């Protein structure tokens, strides 16, 4: 057999049948340490229309900056009540929302710490492979020294910033196209 990666195909409109068993919009367990936050937003297409059949998957470190994964051998402790995975389908208005804790800083390129962030896969009918992006936190001082953000043109960094509207709630929209097209990454 060949050792080229299998070609990606769209999730199509009916992914709920197969993917709903792992839907979870509470990323942190009740006992997880850290600052509780809620992130909500909407997904828009190039016409500015809501995308009601998208799926958002998130992955993040715990409050101490440790991923629950064998590759993370950092000194920060694991949290027994925190895995860090969320999977949220959009509703009829293109909206999604999840609750979690604010992630800690994790190691980045060149030995510098990254700013707190959540990695995100966006899947939907109408895209043939997942779109990879990140949620950062607007106003976070560490953003200024983040090696990944530094690769993003300054004029587009806003698209990655969840903005606090108070009481631990952040707003972060996804624009697939248009003037405010979200920054998507290749890794």
């Amino acid at each position, binding site marked *: *057999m*060949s*050792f*080229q*990666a*299998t*070609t*990606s*195909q*769209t*999730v199509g*409109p*009916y*992914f*709920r*049948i*197969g*993917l709903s*068993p*792992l839907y979870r919009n509470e990323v942190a367990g009740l006992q997880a340490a850290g600052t509780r936050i809620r992130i909500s937003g909407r997904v828009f*297409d*190039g*016409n500015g*229309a809501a*995308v009601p059949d998208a799926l958002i*998957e998130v*992955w*993040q470190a715990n409050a101490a900056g440790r*991923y629950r*994964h064998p*590759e*993370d051998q*950092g000194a920060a402790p694991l949290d027994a009540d925190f*895995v860090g995975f969320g999977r949220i389908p959009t509703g009829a208005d293109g909206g999604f929302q999840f609750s979690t804790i604010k992630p800690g800083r*994790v*190691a*980045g*390129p*060149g030995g510098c710490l*990254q700013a707190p962030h959540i*990695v995100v896969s966006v*899947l939907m009918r*109408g*895209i*043939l*492979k997942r*779109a*990879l992006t*990140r949620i950062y936190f607007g106003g976070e001082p560490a953003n200024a020294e983040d*090696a*990944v953000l530094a*690769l993003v043109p300054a004029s587009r960094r806003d698209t990655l910033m969840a903005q606090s509207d108070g009481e631990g709630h952040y707003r972060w929209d996804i624009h697939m*196209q248009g003037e405010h*097209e*979200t*920054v*998507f*990454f*290749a*890794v």
Partner: protein
Amino acid sequence: MSDLKGYRKPWWHTQPEYVHPAYGSTVKRGPLQPLIEIPATLSEVTGPVFSATTIGKHAADLTAGHAGESIGERIIVTGRVLDENGKALSNTLLEIWQCNAAGRYLHEGDLHDAPLDPNFTGLGQVVTDAEGRYRFTTIRPGEYPWRNHYNAWRPAHIHFSLFGEAFAQRLVTQMYFPGDPLLPFDPIFNCIADEKARNRLVSSLDWENSKSEFALAYRFDIVLRGRHQTPWEK
């Protein structure tokens, strides 16, 4: 700390572009700006691990768990999950979904006028064994129409979702059936220029795993991205 080994870039023309006009919905949904290349960080070389997390005892048999027999041709689907370096991915979760034998999904968004089967849900989950093998039993899915263009029909297919070992490896794909006359006309199957890569989405008839007087088997191997290797690891 030294920088982490990243994942191989896709071979030329083996992964789709976001905008593929023959598949009409991509035109307003696919990002238009170039992707920003970033180095693999701890955030991308880690990811959720769902070893042995399945939905229960019927998860590997989509024909089971209902009051009666599912309608349609029973089939076995089997294969291996490897990475591009040939490493078997053991204990990795595959999520599976499909329409029934009549070409109808158990989903309120599916308005195709074909019957639902009360004995078929179309949801499965399997975890690979130590050699990266998986196996499940199901019903051969039907073809179904969609609205992409006049007289548009999807070839028979089964949807697969895999996490692998890292966020960088995430893959959602579709498995097709050999000899399906709809394949040359399907814009989703034909989303890439590389014919060999495309044809690897087509399963092959698998005599070895077929069960006489019970079910034919189809083989579908899946390759997730592999990490760059240092020369002495090759």
